[in-house]
């Protein structure tokens, strides 16, 4: 039974949220409580499947799943001329890590959402779109097929746009969703053009097959730029980040927390294309520096734009941009020295591990921070920092969760953000000290910004109008507690996390030949 589940887990990760999504409106007709139980069941099963598959991948290596084949691992049929003709999911350690991030965050956010969003109407479509978002994320990080990647990217974008516009809010949320959707559609079309270029050149859509044939011609260079910019825009990199504060601030907080994970799925796509599709065929130093510069711009502009914000979610959205910069910086440094084994061993892998570690850490603490902002909005009905104050008297647990998230994002020990930032600082310093200094200054500004937020929301006397404010409901606290526990645990046992999850992911990402062999090697 266990073997069967592991074998079919890549397909189940898509199937479960899809079935859950389309059944949710019908089950909701029975009763809202039954629908809540249904979506919790679906998300629990999805999370367990992701954990099961991840444990298998981290133990035994890359697992592939071929849709429609006689056997799930029959990538290249004997009569196909050596071409993997079917849709193939290729789950290596990097994919498995992203699946775990998506599933665990999705589970915690759903627990929170059942309480936070229960007062709103239209929950049938809300949970349908929520589960479609999960399916889109899982598909993007699992697939080994470029066109399939585009399809899941579109599923994710459409579901995300619907959820951003969910709380109409006088048309502002709809406007934010429209902006997100316009940019997402243009980005997706550009990615489709790039995929068309690969298909025209290599007569293939499978990532492993294209990677094995990659010539890095002029057309490949054009396709590379199209994909880098589209996915950098989707993950909120400066100067293509403008949609992020609009969308993050107008979406319900539970959705915003998942938008962080959705952005990271795009970041995964960017890393997958650069490392697996191109790898050493490209000029790693030039492309690495492009990613580093995007990262530095994101870090600096993100944090400096966050400080003057008055809307707490808009402020956090700019910090999300800033933190994405750390991931781009770490992995960009790894890319810049790719192919130079002594430098890779000296600091390249550590930089990549730091960047990838920061992806999972950011998903947890940023998700936590957005949930605390949502809990505050749930009780006082505003995101305006100027109207807040003294809430620490009545929302003690929310305040504690906020402190944990704020210290983690600022890189204060012993929380998880410190561990990944330390890896980035030290490895980037070996590459270029100026970059490391910028990263540290950005962390100081992040701390300054969250000191302001903490003071504005929680400190001071109880303000008029907030005397009767109560603590957030228990399910919301449980959702925040799940993420806070992970933030603390990853901070207290960082090397165990790096050894168990992060290092295998970084090495899988850099190991193009291993990826190709996992798909084509069995032919």
């Amino acid at each position, binding site marked *: 039974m266990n073997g069967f589940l592991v074998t079919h887990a890549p397909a189940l990760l898509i199937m479960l949220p899809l079935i859950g999504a389309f059944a949710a409106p019908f089950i909701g007709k029975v009763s809202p409580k039954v629908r809540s139980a249904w979506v919790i069941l679906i998300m629990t099963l999805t999370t367990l499947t992701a954990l099961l598959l991840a444990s298998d991948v981290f133990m035994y290596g890359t697992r592939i799943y071929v849709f429609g084949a006689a056997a799930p691992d029959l990538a290249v049929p004997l009569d196909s001329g050596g071409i993997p003709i079917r849709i193939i999911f290729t789950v290596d350690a990097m994919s498995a890590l992203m699946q775990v991030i998506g599933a665990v965050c999705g589970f915690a956010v759903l627990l929170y959402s059942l309480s936070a969003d229960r007062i709103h109407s239209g929950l049938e479509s809300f949970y349908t779109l929520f589960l479609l978002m999960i399916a889109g994320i899982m598909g993007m990080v699992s697939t080994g097929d470029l066109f399939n990647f585009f399809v899941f990217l579109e599923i994710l974008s459409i579901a995300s746009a619907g959820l951003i516009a969910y709380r109409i809010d006088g048309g502002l949320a709809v406007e934010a969703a429209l902006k997100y959707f316009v940019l997402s559609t243009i980005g997706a079309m550009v990615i489709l053009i790039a995929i068309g270029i690969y298909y025209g050149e290599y007569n293939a859509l499978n990532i492993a097959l294209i990677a094995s044939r990659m010539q890095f011609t002029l057309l490949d260079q054009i396709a590379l730029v199209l994909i880098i910019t589209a996915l950098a825009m989707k993950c909120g990199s400066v100067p293509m980040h403008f949609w992020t504060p609009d969308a993050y601030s107008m979406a319900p907080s539970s959705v915003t927390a998942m938008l962080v994970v959705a952005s990271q799925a795009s970041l995964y796509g960017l890393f997958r294309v650069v490392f697996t599709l191109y790898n050493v065929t490209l000029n790693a130093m030039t492309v690495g520096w492009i990613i580093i510069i995007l990262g530095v711009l994101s870090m600096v502009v993100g944090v400096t734009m966050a400080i003057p914000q*008055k809307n707490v979610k808009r402020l956090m959205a700019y910090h999300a941009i800033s933190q994405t910069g750390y991931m781009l910086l770490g992995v960009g440094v790894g890319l810049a020295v790719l192919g130079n084994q002594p430098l890779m061993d000296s*600091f390249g892998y550590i930089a990549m591990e730091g960047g990838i570690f920061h992806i999972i850490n950011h998903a947890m603490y940023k998700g936590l921070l957005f949930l605390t902002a949502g809990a505050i909005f749930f009780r006082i009905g505003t995101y305006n920092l100027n109207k807040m104050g003294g809430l620490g008297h009545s929302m003690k647990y929310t305040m504690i969760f906020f402190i944990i998230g704020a210290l983690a994002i600022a890189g204060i020990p012993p929380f998880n953000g410190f561990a990944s930032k330390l890896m980035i600082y030290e*490895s980037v310093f070996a590459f270029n000290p100026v970059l490391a200094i910028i990263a540290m200054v950005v962390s100081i500004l992040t701390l300054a910004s969250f000191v302001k937020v903490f003071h504005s929301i929680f400190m001071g006397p109880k303000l008029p109008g907030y005397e009767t404010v109560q603590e957030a409901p228990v399910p919301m606290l449980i959702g925040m507690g799940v993420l806070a526990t992970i933030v603390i645990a990853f901070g207290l046992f960082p*090397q*165990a996390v790096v050894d168990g999850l992060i290092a295998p992911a970084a090495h899988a990402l850099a190991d193009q030949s291993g990826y190709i062999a996992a798909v084509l090697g069995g032919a």
Partner: protein
Amino acid sequence: MDLFASLTTGTGFWNPLAWLIAVIAATVIVYLILQRGEPGYKKGTAQTTPFISGNPEPGKEMVHVRASNLYWGYLDALKGYYDLVVPAHTGVVNDYVLWYLGVTAALMIVVVVFI
């Protein structure tokens, strides 16, 4: 897998357990110093009210420093920078698309010319 292993960073290491022990030791020292404080301290008396040159203390809700009043010095010092960056965030989707297309064009030139 050693759960309490130090995090190695290539050139250094970090052990959260050692940090925690140090924090606990510091907390104990702080507590011991606190215990040696003035035992006659009474909350809710004149001992705990601020002295503002003899003026009456305003209501607590009147003295809460709001978000807009924080970091004005920092923002003023970087006014030149913010005058450039903030207006770029127009909120107009056409501008968002232009930035995206501009970056794509710039990277296209860099990659195609320099690679």
